C-alpha cells in the first residue's frame, strides 16, 4: 500500500481540476515515498560537493546562414498593468546509497501582481533512484504529469546520472503547462528556450504549453541565461550595437535540426543598462506587434536588474537548494528512514591533494 497524502489546493492560486493535474503532486509524492521505502537502514554516502542542477543552456539550433537583422527593435516600456509569471525548477543529488542515488527536486512559480511578488513552491521531493526503479519512476511521472509516454521512444529512460535533471524538467513542464492554463492575459516567462524535440521537452508538450497560453491570451517569453549561438565567431549576446537599451535584435536564418523543433522567434534582448544581453524566444505564432508589445509590457511591469526579469530571477532563487536545505534533507532521510551517513574519502582530494577538485568537477 502506498502511503497517501491529502493534497489541498491553495486558495490564492488554483490549479485546473483536470484529472492529470490534480494527481500531479500526489503521484510525485507517492513515488518519492515508495522509492525511499526501499532504503530503510542502509548506509548513505553524502555527496562531497552536492551538484545543483538548474542551469539551462539553449538547445543547439543549426544556423547555416545566421543573420542579425539590421533593424533594431526599440522597446518602449508599457506600464499597462500586466501579470508577469515565471517558472523554474531545480534538482540536486544529496547522496549515494549502495544501490543508487538520493536526489531532490523542487519547482517554483512566481508572479508579480499589484507590484507584489507571490509564489507557490512545490517540494522538495526526494527520490531514491536505482537502476531497478528509474524506468518505473520516470515513466510513471511522465504519465502522471504529461499524460503521455516519451514520443520518440516508449522505452526511453535516462541514465541514472541524468535522472535529477530529467525529473526536474518534468516538474518544470508541468508547472509551465499549469501556469499557461490558469493565467490569463499575462506574460509567462520560461527559463531556457522554446526549442522542443528532446527527451526533456517533447514537441507535443511544448506545443500544448504554447497553445494553452495563447488560448488564455498569455504570451510566453523564454530567456536563456547562456547561449551557444554564434555569429561570425562571436556569441550572439556579445554583439551589441552602441545604442541605449532597452532594445531587441531579431535573428533570422535559423533552422532547427530534426528532430528539434523551434517554436519561437529568436531575439537578442538587451533590456536594461549594463553589458548583459540574453537570447529571448517568443512564441512564433503570435503577431510581430504582439511579440514586441509583450516585451514592452515586461519592461514596464517587472524589475530588470542587469536586463534579466526579476520574476524569473526569484523563481530561480526560490527553487534553488541551499546548503542548509541539503543538510536538512539529509537529516530528514536519516531520521525518517534510519539511514546511516558514512563519509568515504573523496578519492580525488585524497590522491591529488589541492589539485583534486572533487568528484563533482572531475
Amino acid at each position: 500500500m502506498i502511503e497517501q497524502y491529502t493534497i489541498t489546493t491553495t486558495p490564492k492560486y488554483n490549479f485546473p481540476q483536470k484529472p492529470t493535474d490534480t494527481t500531479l503532486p500526489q503521484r510525485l509524492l507517492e513515488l518519492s515515498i515508495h522509492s525511499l521505502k526501499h532504503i530503510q537502514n542502509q548506509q548513505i554516502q553524502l555527496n562531497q560537493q552536492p551538484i545543483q542542477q538548474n542551469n539551462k543552456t539553449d538547445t543547439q539550433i543549426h544556423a547555416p546562414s545566421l543573420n542579425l537583422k539590421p533593424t533594431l527593435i526599440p522597446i518602449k516600456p508599457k506600464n499597462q498593468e500586466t501579470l508577469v509569471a515565471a517558472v523554474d525548477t531545480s534538482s540536486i543529488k544529496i547522496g549515494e546509497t549502495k544501490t543508487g542515488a538520493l536526489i531532490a527536486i523542487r519547482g517554483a512559480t512566481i508572479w508579480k501582481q499589484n507590484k507584489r511578488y507571490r509564489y507557490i513552491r512545490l517540494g522538495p521531493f526526494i527520490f531514491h533512484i536505482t537502476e531497478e526503479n528509474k524506468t518505473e519512476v520516470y515513466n510513471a511521472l511522465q504519465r502522471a504529469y504529461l499524460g503521455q509516454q516519451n514520443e520518440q521512444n516508449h522505452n526511453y529512460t535516462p541514465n541514472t546520472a541524468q535522472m535529477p535533471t530529467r525529473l526536474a524538467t518534468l516538474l518544470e513542464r508541468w508547472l509551465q503547462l499549469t501556469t499557461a492554463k490558469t493565467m490569463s492575459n499575462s506574460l509567462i516567462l520560461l527559463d531556457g528556450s522554446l526549442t522542443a524535440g528532446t527527451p526533456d521537452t517533447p514537441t507535443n508538450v511544448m506545443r500544448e504549453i504554447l497553445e494553452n497560453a495563447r488560448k488564455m491570451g498569455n504570451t510566453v517569453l523564454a530567456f536563456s541565461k547562456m547561449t551557444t549561438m554564434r555569429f561570425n565567431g562571436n556569441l550572439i549576446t556579445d554583439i551589441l550595437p552602441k545604442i541605449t537599451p532597452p532594445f531587441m535584435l531579431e535573428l533570422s536564418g535559423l533552422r532547427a535540426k530534426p528532430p528539434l523543433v523551434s517554436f519561437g522567434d529568436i531575439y537578442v534582448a538587451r533590456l536594461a543598462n549594463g553589458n548583459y544581453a540574453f537570447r529571448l524566444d517568443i512564441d512564433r505564432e503570435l503577431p510581430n506587434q504582439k511579440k514586441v508589445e509583450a516585451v514592452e509590457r515586461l519592461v514596464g511591469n517587472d524589475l530588470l536588474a542587469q536586463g534579466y526579469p526579476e520574476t524569473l530571477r526569484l523563481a530561480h532563487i526560490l527553487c534553488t537548494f541551499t546548503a542548509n536545505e541539503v543538510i536538512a534533507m539529509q537529516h530528514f532521510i536519516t531520521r525518517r528512514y534510519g539511514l546511516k551517513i558514512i563519509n568515504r574519502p573523496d578519492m580525488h582530494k585524497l590522491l591529488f591533494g589541492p589539485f583534486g577538485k572533487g568528484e563533482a568537477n572531475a
Partner: protein
Amino acid sequence: MKLYKKEGNIVQILSFPNETAEKGDYLLIEDADAGKALIAQVIDVQFASIPGVLEELLRSLPDGGEIMQGEDFDPLEIAPHITYIQDASLLVCKIRATIENGENLSPTSAWLPSRSQSTIKKLSIPTLLKLARINGELPIVLGGTKDASLLTIDASSLDGRLNIITGKKETGKSHLSKLLISSLVGYKATVVVFDLNGEYLSLGMTSDGKKNAFYDKIHVLTPAQNFKVALKQLNLHVLLEILIHALHLPGTSAREFRRIWQSLKERNMLTLHDLGEAIRNWHCNQHVRDALFSRYHALVNSGFFTDNVAEATLLEECLFRAKEQGGAIIINLRNTSPIDRQIVVEYLLGKLVELLTGWKLKAVFLFAEEAHLYLRETYWDDIVTRMRHFGIFTTFITNQPDTIRENIYRQADNIFLFNFTNEHDLEVVSRAARVDAETVKSIARDLPPHHCLVLGKVVRDFPIVVKIRALDVKTMGETRLFFKTDQS
C-alpha cells in the same frame, strides 16, 4: 549535543534547538572508552555556522525588504528540519576540569575526548558542587542557582583570603557584603566594616525595624561621637603615620614632632592642650612650628581625639566582645570629611595591627567599601601582603574596579562579580589571576541584577552564577531622591 572543536581549553559544542544551554551552565563531556570526562562551562552561545543560511535569509526578503507572500507545498515536511538546522547553536565552553573514574577531579584539559563517541549532558549545580566538594562545616548559603539549587560556600574559604566584591551600581554588592558579614558574625568571627555611606548601620535590625539575631553583635562606631581616641592610648608610630600620610606633614617637621611627643610622654603630659602648648613654645624654625600647628588644629578639629581616656575605650571593648562571641564593628564614615576619614582609617588599621601582633585578637575580617576614598596608596600592598599575615583578611567592595590596583586583582582569592556592561571595567576585573578573561567578559555582561558570578577558591575555581538570597535587614544608605514622594 555534539562535540565540534577543541582549541586549548576551549571546546565548541553543537547544540540543537531542543537542547537548551545558556551561559554559565556546566556540561559534562563524557568519553566512556577513555573513562574520563571533561567538565566545561558555557561562556558564550552563538549561532552555528550553517552553510547556506545567508542565502536562506536573503531569499526570504526579496520583496523590497518585506517577507514575500507565498505558499509552500512541502509534503515530506522538510521545513521543520530546515529550521531545526538553522536554529542550531554553537556553545563556546571553557574546560574547567577533568574527572577520572567518576570522582577524581583535576584541572587539566590536556586530553581529547572522542568527537563521535562522547556523550554530552548538562551537569547540574548540585552534582558539580558534590564533585568539587564545595561544602564544608561552616556553610554560608549565598542564594539560588539557575537550576533552583542552593549555592552554599564554606565560611572558612573566606578565612585568610583576599576578596573583591564588584559590579556596577545597584546590582547588589552591599547586599552580598551584608550577607557575608552576618554569616561570618554568625560563626563568631570579628568583622570590621568601613562604612562609607552608612549602609551597614542597621545590620542588626530587620526590614520592619525590629531587632534581629545579630542586634547585640553589631557595634556602630561613629568617629567624633562614640568613637574617640585619647592621645595617651596612641602609639607615636600610629600618630606619625596619620600626620605624614593623612595630613602630609613634611619629614623635618615630623622629626620635631617626635621630639615634642617624647618630651611630653616623659612628663606624662600627653593631652591635646599640652601638645598645643608644647608646639607653641618649642624652639624650632617658625615654618616647622606653623606646619606642626596646622596639623595639630586638624587633629583637634576632627573631634576624633580626646583627653578623656574613658571616652576612648569603646573600640577595644567592641573588638574584645566580638572576639568572644563574634561581632561586626561598623565604622560609620558617612558624615566624615575626607581628611578625617583617612585619620580614622590610619588609626584603626594601626590599632588592629597592634592588637593582632600582640595576639589580643585572633584575626579580623575587614570589609572596605570604595577603599580608594580613604586608603592611602602604600596601604594597598600592605593590606594584601603584610597585614594578611597579621590576620586582617580584607574584602574590597567597589563599583569602580579600576580604583583597585592590578596587583590586588592578581592576588585576590575570591571575586564576587556583579553585572558590568562597560568594556573597560570588565577588562580590569579580567586581570584577576583566578579567572580567565573570556569568562568574565562574556558572563558578567549578561548578569541580571542581584545575580553574581562567584569566582575563586570559595567555588574551587568553578565559576558559578548565583542569585543572591534576600536578607531581612533594614535597608540604609539609600540615595536621596528629589522626585521621590515622602511615604510617611
